[in-house]
């Protein structure tokens, strides 16, 4: 079925609140999912794959700062979805980037890493050059690099598999983000190692996808839409006699 951008954003926000997100985190998470979906980057698929885990997460569990200095921070994502854990960690990196010109943050142990792009877009919109890097799987080893130019709404994305897997190849469910005030850090493939480019999204293609979504609506899976609406219902209050007083005029 087709839904509008605003509709998807509003229902997602309520759904996140329905599963225990605070209002601000629900807004951010909804923005992240909707942003991806509007650029045809399959935000709802990514959400749906980890939804059960997301619902089961303990809302009281918070990401913690393992280490930080002026330029660098390491944050333990507590095995939470980036929808729950990344917004403030990224704001920390943004603060450092603004203060020092360049910052690096590693968020360890996090899930649904694709969805982080939505928040990176927001930081880029605030004038920061942002690049994120993570590894998706061990066999074959794939790497994903996402880069936003400062003030650009759409990223450049590269996903590739690395043929020569290094000896040290422990599972890595972290994500590394570099922010720079003045220098853009777009992913350009210049490695001497052998790799296969699996996916490449250019800014222009993504902007065209966005335009299409805004004109024609966003196609969503009926089942996912139903699930989001069901979760959103948890924010609503059942009707009772006195509640009708606010339901508008009676004739």
């Amino acid at each position, binding site marked *: *079925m*087709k*839904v*509008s*951008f*605003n*509709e998807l954003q509003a229902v997602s926000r309520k759904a996140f609140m329905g599963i225990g997100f*605070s*209002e*601000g*985190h629900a*807004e*951010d998470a909804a923005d992240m999912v909707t942003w991806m979906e509007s650029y045809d980057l399959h935000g709802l698929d990514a959400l749906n794959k980890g939804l059960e885990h997301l619902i089961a997460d303990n809302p009281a569990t*918070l*990401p913690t*700062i393992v280490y930080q200095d002026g330029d660098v921070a390491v944050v333990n994502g507590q095995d939470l979805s980036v929808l729950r854990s990344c*917004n*403030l*960690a990224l*704001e*920390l990196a*943004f*603060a450092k980037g*603004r*203060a020092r010109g360049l910052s690096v943050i590693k968020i360890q142990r996090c899930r649904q890493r694709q969805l982080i792009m939505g928040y990176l877009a*927001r930081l880029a*919109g*605030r004038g920061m050059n942002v690049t994120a890097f993570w590894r998706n799987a061990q066999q074959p080893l794939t790497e994903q690099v996402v880069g936003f130019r400062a003030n650009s709404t759409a990223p450049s994305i590269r996903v590739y598999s690395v043929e020569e897997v290094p000896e040290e190849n422990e599972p890595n469910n972290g994500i590394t983000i570099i922010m720079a005030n003045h220098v853009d850090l777009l992913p350009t493939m210049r490695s001497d190692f052998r790799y296969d480019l699996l996916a490449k999204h250019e800014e222009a293609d993504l902007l065209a996808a966005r335009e299409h979504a*805004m*004109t*024609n*609506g966003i196609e969503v899976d009926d089942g996912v839409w139903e699930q989001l609406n069901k979760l959103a*219902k948890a*924010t*609503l*209050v*059942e*009707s*009772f006699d*006195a*509640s009708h*007083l*606010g*339901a*508008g*005029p*009676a*004739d």
Partner: protein
Amino acid sequence: MIDLASPAALATPVTRAPGLVMDLERLGSFNATRLSFARTLIRVMGRQRWQISCDLFDLNTHGHGEVIYRVQTPNGRYHVVIFSQPLDDALRSDRVIADAWDITFGLVEGDVEEALMQSLAENIPLQEAGRQHPRLLVISRANKSVRNFETVVTDLATGVQPSLESFTEGGYLYRTTAVYGNGKFGIADYGRLRTNPDFRHPFSAQMTAVYVLRQFSIDQVEFLARSRAPETAIALAQPLKRYVGIGNSTGLGMAPFLINHPQLIDQWVHAREQALAIAKSQPPDELARDRLLILGRRAQQFFKETTVEDADQQGRNQMVVAELEGIIDWLEQIPLDLDLWQQLTDWAEAALSLESQELINGLLIELYPQYVDFLEDAMAVEERMELTPDMPLVQLKQLIETHFDWALAEDFDTPEASHWFWYRSIEKEEPRLGVRGIDPGAEKELSLAVAPRVKRTYGKISEYLEQNPRSLTVEFLMAEPSFVDIVRRIQTMAATAYGEIRANLWHRDMRPIHLLRTKLSFLGANRFDPRGDRWVRVTFFQGAPLIEELNNEPADLTAFDDWSFPLAPTSLEQQETYESLL
């Protein structure tokens, strides 16, 4: 910002203090001004020579069927598609939870091909329950005014013009109960309209749909009269047509908008305040004084003629009539001092009711279209609340002390200060009010009351600073993540003057009706008729030029734009000028 090229900029206008303007009761006394969206729309339509015509008028003898109006602008073509259907009298309700209406309609971008028409016919009548097409910019529904509709049809069928009383109470044949835009139920997102030269002003698409509906209401009663008695039926007299507006019934559903869009509200109020400041800084002359006297007498007559059911509002209207008498006397005698307008508003602020104060402000804005109309383009804003994570936390605390002192001053621990809570009902997800401690649902409270949240945030920040005096905002938020949205709001809104409504929305004495009137005044509504504290009936476009006048490409755009405070016609001959009615 004021256009520095404008002569008005030379007078260094000073806007009013936010603490004065953003008081909820004052906002709830606003009337429409020339910067309200209905007024702006009619000006734009006239200036750009929009043409509106009827493409399809397929009604049966009961007035049921389909009607399509074409709206042609210099930039594009749109259609208002209307479905009129039978409705059992027992089902006719203004309640948001209603699911059947006399008519449903939508504004479509582009042409209406057969396949699209079929989709519209299947979904628009369902409103919220339908899956609407992305080329729809607006959907809405309306019910007949039980009081007026049948009377007007019967009178016209028998060859008699309806009595004025049919229009002085309410002033409409149809009343809308919701006008949806911005992506609701699958329709187009506002983001698409932002770059559309026809609908870039806020709510201009919604206002266009309502304006065309007014024409439909006239066309339909005339059609029904002709169908009933082709031998005797007459058309509605032109002055009465102009006196027909469109009613609207609005409840609590509108309230969250004012709180959830503070940057937009800031833009609207700021534009109004800039316009007022510019007007007040102009040196008065005889022409301007005469014009103000004419407008004052017209407004006075409007309020004399307005009958509303709400006794409190009726009293406020009568107070306006009495106070305007004094103002008019004073204006007729006072010398033309350079600061005359400032004297007038100072006097009003010291001695007159809020209704009269804000009415005078609106009339002053009306005097100087050449200096204030550029502000109609300053009503839209890209809303974006962002965090400043590197702000020292102590600076955030100071921001709260400086810009949210009104929130810190309230004691939220008393029963009366925390009486209400806002929640969203399972019935059509409408916002409602519950009594804390009595009604169920407080655990699902909507965070619309900004003041208590700011005060709680302030307390948490103060505690955190005791242990971490040199910390940054982001470090506080890593420890207290649930405050991220309110901190973002505080940081963003501290840079604005008029975004935050300075009221405790939990307080027992808070009147939600003020929130509704604030927004409705910017939309361009008049005849505010509150029904209790939670909903209000208003009228749009009463007195506005008719589509036939628009299609005639008016030569005098100033006269075309001069339709505020519409008066009952005293003659059924061709439209008089307003001045001749006084």
